[in-house]
């Protein structure tokens, strides 16, 4: 650490190296707020290191932060225990960072403070919270979609079938000649109801994927796509179910996006597995310009991939097509 009076510190070289190698900023403060020594990661200081030792917290920090830091120092000294405070501060290198400060008494009139930069950790926690919220919202939206489809589709058709049967019963007594036509109509409604239920179930989880794996399931997607799709490569072996499902939905969403927005003439799909991870690439030759930050479909895919411990990258320069590339590990505990 750097001593206030410039004299050699009492720590030996090894001790000093140990302190300087720590990822946190270390401070020794007097009870009146004077900085006595600094060490560790001094890039986190609000002022250039040379100006710090000998100055007080109120001289160097914004008033509200200095007040909170000194309150923490007093609390630590009065109670003889560890005290903590958190604040956001612009460092002397110009970065706005979030800090968690742990203050411990180091004598009757001074404390040692460990200042940890928690910006990245907090951001990761915020990202995780937002991602979880989006996943929950996507689940809710999916349930609403299923409910709506059942209500408007199959349920309405079955209600109509019930009505047909009621009328058949009545016609048998009053006008039997009309019965065959009513039965035909009921049969048509029933067939349509079954088709709608089958379509709905396929949207929830494609049976072809569970039964026969990615190659036939992706080929089915390609056949139903609204633009030409070439499945260039798929793994020969079966993959973990969560990886197969994520791969399927990623390709499905990418194809839907391409059909809606890309103006592409063709799309290629490559899925390769190397034992411990799967790489998925969906590329189109369209107009590009897709923005993962604004497209809910792409963000939903990124959340799904992240939930499996993977990553999603989107390259979509205007005029140069769009390529989605995702990597999914096979050993994620969430699978």
């Amino acid at each position: 650490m750097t001593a206030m009076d410039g004299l050699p510190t009492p720590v030996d070289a090894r001790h000093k190296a140990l302190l300087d190698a720590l990822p946190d900023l270390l401070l020794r403060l007097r009870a009146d707020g004077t900085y006595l020594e600094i060490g560790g990661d001094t890039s986190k200081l609000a002022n250039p290191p040379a100006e710090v030792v000998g100055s007080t917290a109120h001289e160097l920090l914004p008033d509200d932060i200095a007040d909170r830091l000194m309150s923490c120092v007093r609390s630590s000294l009065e109670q003889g225990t560890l005290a903590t405070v958190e604040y956001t501060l612009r460092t002397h290198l110009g970065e706005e960072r979030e800090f968690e400060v742990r203050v411990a008494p180091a004598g009757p009139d001074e404390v040692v403070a460990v200042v940890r930069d928690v910006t990245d950790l907090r951001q990761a926690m915020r990202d995780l919270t937002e991602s979880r919220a989006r996943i929950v919202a996507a689940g809710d939206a999916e349930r609403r979609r299923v409910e709506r489809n059942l209500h408007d589709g199959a349920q309405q058709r079955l209600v109509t079938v019930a009505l047909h049967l009621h009328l058949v019963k009545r016609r048998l007594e009053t006008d039997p000649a009309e019965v065959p036509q009513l039965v035909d109509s009921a049969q048509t409604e029933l067939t349509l109801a079954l088709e709608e239920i089958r379509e709905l179930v396929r949207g929830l989880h494609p049976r072809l994927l569970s039964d026969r794996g990615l190659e036939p399931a992706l080929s089915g997607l390609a056949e139903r796509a609204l633009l030409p799709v070439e499945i260039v490569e798929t793994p020969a072996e079966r993959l973990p179910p969560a990886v197969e499902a994520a791969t399927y939905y990623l390709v499905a969403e990418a194809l839907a996006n391409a059909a809606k927005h890309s103006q592409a003439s063709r799309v290629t799909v490559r899925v390769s597995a190397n034992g411990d991870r799967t790489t998925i690439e969906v590329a189109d030759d369209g107009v590009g310009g897709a923005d993962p930050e604004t497209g809910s479909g792409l963000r939903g895919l990124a959340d799904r991939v992240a939930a499996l411990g993977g990553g999603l990258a989107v390259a979509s320069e205007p005029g140069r097509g769009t390529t989605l590339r995702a990597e999914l590990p096979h050993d994620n505990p969430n699978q």
Partner: protein
Amino acid sequence: MWPESTPLRVVIADDDERYAELIADLLHGSPELEVIGIAKDGEEAVQLACWQDADIVLMDIDMPRIDGIVATRLVREARPRMCVLMLTGADPDRIQEARDAGATGYVNKLHAPADLVPALLALCGAPAAPAAHAD
């Protein structure tokens, strides 16, 4: 009590035209009821009910242009004595919204073959018919 010789004039409002025709067929067997029109959305339902001076509107909830709840409110504002019976498979929250908008009762589409005619007859005062329900 509704005069025995005067059939109840019914408008059916449902965007599923095939279903609406079947309901009309269902009601056709009851001399106490006369279907005077079928509307395929809420706006048509309001216009038809008011122009034809219906006694009762059989109203679905989820319909294009304006839904059955808004249509119910408009019908009741224009013709306070006109009855609106909801005929729908919608969830209970929506049913309550319809009641708040002035709906007289509710018949679940799933039970329409058995319950609809008795519910309508109850509205016109036939003594033995059960009341429209809200299950």
